[in-house]
């Protein structure tokens, strides 16, 4: 955390473990947007992502004492939610994801721009959905969530060379998929 942005993760965790349950709201506000974005990109469904993130955050709260390094709370949370996503994907008949049908509602003041953007997003989402789960996860963590390879390793439990290989393959597959859908 930068100065002026409130208590550090370690301070918030200590407060929660001291019995201040409500302080977990700080953790939610801090990391929920990224976790929802990540889960939605992994699962292709806002509802499924909301379930995964909600269940993951509750589990994180219950096991907060086992977070050995609160300064790395972010990657620990991603790891929990990633496991929820993995379990959800494993329950599906195939590893593929189905995208939400409803497109974003366009802003009346900039309908043309919004529609064009929505079309571009739909293209990218379709291309992303064609990637295998491990490539999709690698691309999203690296380029959407902006993690370093070290952070990705902490969030996934995988080795950095493995993650680099997946990111490289994901880039190639995504570019190819974009060329196919465009």
């Amino acid at each position, binding site marked *: 955390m930068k100065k002026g942005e409130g208590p550090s993760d370690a301070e918030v965790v200590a407060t929660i473990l001291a019995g201040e349950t409500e302080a977990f709201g700080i953790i*939610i506000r801090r990391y929920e947007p990224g976790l929802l974005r990540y889960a939605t*990109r992994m699962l292709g469904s806002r509802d499924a*992502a909301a379930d995964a993130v*909600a269940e993951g955050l509750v589990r994180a*709260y219950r096991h907060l004492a086992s977070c050995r390094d609160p300064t790395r709370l972010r990657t620990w949370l991603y790891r929990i939610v990633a496991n929820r996503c993995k*379990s959800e994907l494993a329950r599906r008949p195939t590893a593929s994801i189905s995208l939400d049908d409803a497109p974003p509602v366009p802003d009346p003041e900039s309908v043309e721009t919004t529609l064009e953007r929505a079309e571009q997003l739909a293209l990218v989402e379709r291309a992303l959905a064609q990637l295998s789960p491990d490539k999709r996860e690698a691309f999203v963590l690296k380029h959407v969530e902006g993690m370093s390879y070290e952070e990705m390793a902490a969030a996934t439990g995988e080795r950095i060379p493995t993650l680099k290989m997946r990111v490289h393959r994901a*880039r190639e597959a995504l*570019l190819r998929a974009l060329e196919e859908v465009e």
Partner: protein
Amino acid sequence: MKFLDPRVHRVLDGEEPRESLDLALRRQVERLDQAAALLASSLEQASVADRVMTAIRRPAPAHTHRFIHWLVTPRAIVLRVRPAWSLALAAGLLAALLLPLPESRVALREGEGIAQFVARFPGAHSVAVVGSFNDWQPESTRLEDPDHDGVWGASVVLPAGAHEYMFVVDGERWIADPLAERFVQDDYGRENSVVLVQPARVSHL
């Protein structure tokens, strides 16, 4: 599928400046940047904060009480033992568990069974079982070795059905059970063991 110039990867990994690329390669970088930016910025989603806070304000499930209750109240279970060498150990344990006290009652919920994980890891300092049932968290379900003979075990109440799992030894070695009846390749290229839990025969005495 290798059609990306390695320099594109190096630029995207921040190892080389973007200006080092020619126009065609820079276009590929920009296309990927654009895709990532779209995926990062366009999501509007309702918060789950209320749902989470409501859940955590409730008392946590009393797993300890439930486990103690299970210990003192023998019931019908399904026993799962992995390593072949420990079948004798399993047989003894099974006999002990299936010879309940006269007043024994079945207290498992409908649709639940018990998986017994037993494995031999001589010299290990800690062994845990991780799986789809505990979100693969090594801290969740630890095996015990009270006799310090290298035989580790744990009983876990699980919903009936198939559960993927692995053992985690000393917090860092993830080991699939080599004698599991089933294995499955997960989405990440790893091979998991599979335990099949049958629902306990719940009697209502």
